[in-house]
């Protein structure tokens, strides 16, 4: 049924957006590399495919006048989800263009910012692409060539977002969210291929009693 399809597609788009953001955050830092640029390119393309698919599906659903009121409300909610994802994507793409231009790879003296991140991001990209391992096949001038592509893609996305706002008659503020506050705490966090890990936050003084909250515990958090 239309709704389920939409939801799965939106979930996929959501996942890709989140992963894309993680990848863009790594741009310009010491975990930047040619591979990262390629990952960015691939993730971006996937995001765009998903976006177009989502858009066609949702617009066709919304254009249909014969749907019931609850259905329409549900589609409007999905539409708000979709447009918010697109907004995030657009911003991230623009930023990746800017940072990519500022930190070219193929220069004799690379000046990446020493952020402390040194690992690679291929697991994130693999998650975005829904594959087990990423394959890297790009050539060495990916950063310049890709940036041109990126610029055209950005204009496409911007156009799409504008079109969406103009043509689709959905009032985003009228949508009532299904999730209530604190919903993020409710789901189980054991989804995803993550390993048992230990995270210790940067060392902090334990006495921080300005408010009721208990914050920077100088202990070890186990996260599943």
């Amino acid at each position, binding site marked *: 049924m239309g709704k389920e399809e939409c939801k799965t597609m939106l979930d996929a788009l*959501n*996942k890709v957006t*989140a*992963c894309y953001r*993680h990848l*863009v*955050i790594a*741009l*310009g*830092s010491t975990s930047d590399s040619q591979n990262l640029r390629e990952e960015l390119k691939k993730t971006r393309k996937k995001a765009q495919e998903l976006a177009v698919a989502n858009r066609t599906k949702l617009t066709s659903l919304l254009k249909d006048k014969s749907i019931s009121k609850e259905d329409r409300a549900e589609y409007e*909610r999905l539409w*708000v*989800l979709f447009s*918010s*994802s697109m907004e*995030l994507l657009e*911003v991230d793409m623009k*930023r990746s263009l800017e*940072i990519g231009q500022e930190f070219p790879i193929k220069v004799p003296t690379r*000046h*990446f*910012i*020493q*952020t*402390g*991140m*040194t*690992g690679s*991001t291929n697991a994130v990209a693999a*998650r*975005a692409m829904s594959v087990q391992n990423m394959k890297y096949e790009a050539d060495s001038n990916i950063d310049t060539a890709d940036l041109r592509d990126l610029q055209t893609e950005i204009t496409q996305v911007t156009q799409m977002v504008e079109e969406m706002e103009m043509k689709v008659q959905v009032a*985003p*503020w*009228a*949508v009532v*969210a*299904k999730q*209530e*506050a*604190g*919903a*993020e*705490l409710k*789901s189980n966090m054991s*989804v995803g291929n*993550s390993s048992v*890990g230990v*995270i*210790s*936050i*940067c*060392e*902090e*003084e334990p006495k921080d009693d*300005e408010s009721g*909250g*208990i*914050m920077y515990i100088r202990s*070890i958090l186990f*996260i599943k």
Partner: protein
Amino acid sequence: MQAASLNLLSKHLVGMVTPTSRPLLLLHIFIFPFQAEMILLEMQDPNTGVRSQPQRLVITTIPHAITGEDIVTWLADRLQIDVQEARSFGSMLVALGYIYPLQDHKRLVIKPDTSLYRFQTPYFWPTQQWPVEDTDYAIYLAKRNIRKKGLLELYEQEQYNRLHKWMNHKWDFIVMQAKEQYRAAKERKKPDRVVFDCQERAYWVVHRPPPGTVSAMDYGLDRRTDPNADETQTSDYYERIMIFTQQAIMRPRVKSSVSIGALVKHCATYIGHDPFLSACLPSNPWLTDDTTYWNLNMSNVETPTKMRVERWTFSFKELLSDPRGRDDFRLFLKKEFSGENLAFWEGCEDLKWGTAATMKEKAEQIYKTFLARGAPRWINIDGKTMEVTMKGLKHPHRYVLDAAQTHIYMLMKKDSYGRYLKSPVFKDTVKKAIRPEEHKFNDAQLEQNARNRRPSLSPIILRQQEQELRAKMAANAPVDITQLCRFTTPVPHFSVYSGIIDPPSSNTSPSLPFLPHTPICPSPISVALDSTSASERRLEASEGEGEQNTEARVPDRGNVSKSRVALSLRRLLKRGCSPSAMFASLSPKCHTAAATSSRIQPITPDEPSQAPPRRTGNFFQIKVDIPPECRIYPIESEDEEEENRLASEEVVGTEEIICPWESLTQQNGTG
């Protein structure tokens, strides 16, 4: 080209940096980022950049940590500035978010010791064209909520609730995205995860600072037009220039010698009192995080500081604008039994600054207390001003008492102020005034102070305290020479200037020895407290009789316009109107209604129409420390409601002060 531009850059930057430990960032925010980024890139150089070392945490080791002292030395070296300036510059970098501290992450300063810092990833750099979005912040808070399992800090909880309310339509997206980002983050290796968490946290400390911190991102208000942008030279533009220059020619001008002289005098007088220019005793709270200065200078403090008392001698305006000074002056006037001037002045201020709904009743009350013939606290203003004021009171508005207020102000300034400064009250205050010792904090103590910062008293509580004080003051009110009335009780919100001594007694009119013809002025509240049903019935029966009765009851009313006025006022008071309803009921339509109901509903503001109810209760329940009676509405309307509840059927005292403007409306009335 690079080297040359960087040298120029360094000279330019040196000029921008101020030597104080908290540099003013307002101007820098627009020019600074580009230059900061160039400096940052240089700092990365493995040979000539800042020395980096690994940070050892419990399980992992994370590279690329730099110490504060290394940063400061490198900056001093590269930009050819001294250590103090390098420190300020470094602090600017941290405050803007280019570098973040690994310990004590909420204090965005450079500590020139071995405390560790790290560079922020370019995505999180502050640049002007990437506005910080609330959506992102909501996602971050949701992620943090997941991580901390619901234990967010107080200000984070407040923000969370607020965003949940205002971004409710996007909340599904925010939750979904938060979960996905959380899972995606787990795909990275452990050290990278730690680094990412620190980066994100640092970013939001800069852009959504915890309360009580000075934020480098404050740049003032957003403007619709950019004042630095070039304006197109249309005819409209030239027309505006012409109008401006024409007006400038016509403006009255002061000789520059005079105006500069005044400026010089002002500066010379105030230089010792300006905390930017001279030391603030005991210490400037903004610099040392120690709030003794504010505590010593609160408005209700017993002994003021010497500096504060000195300020009162500068001008009368200074004395009046300082609440403690005004208290002192009031005390002096009380001893001289001439407090009515100050009370009148305060009443006028109250009128000017109060809410529009209470204005009419306030004007009426002030008239009754200060201006009417035979008023209990009659003030002495000249005939012409009185004429103007009376004319204005017929159609009262906010500034109707301005002329009278100015007259009284000048009177106080020329007469009482001088005497005050020579009085024993003032001399006593000067003698008792304290001069606090200067604090000398070392760095460790400054750290301690910064950690112990606490929010100050809520303004709601302060306002409540003020109200209590005012009520207390009204209870032991001063006596004026002209005061005579024994029958008015202080009205709660007019307690400042109603100044009455005795509680109300019976309804019989006393004949007070020194002012035989002055009528008593019962306030509606006191009358309410006195009422008996018998007398009310009596009045009601007698009302029909009309003019004869009233004339009989109001013998010495010859000089006031007729009994109809008295009748109307009595009728109103009988019906339990609160003053706020008085003018409403004076209008013709309300008279018929007044006749029937025993309690008039005042003009209540419409219940604000509720927005379509969204059941979005707050997720985080935050306890606020205010007493239950205290509410966030303006106190005036609150009091009105209470008055209406209290006001019951009442009977009128025998004689009252009539407001002259009633006669106008009465002619339209149904009588």
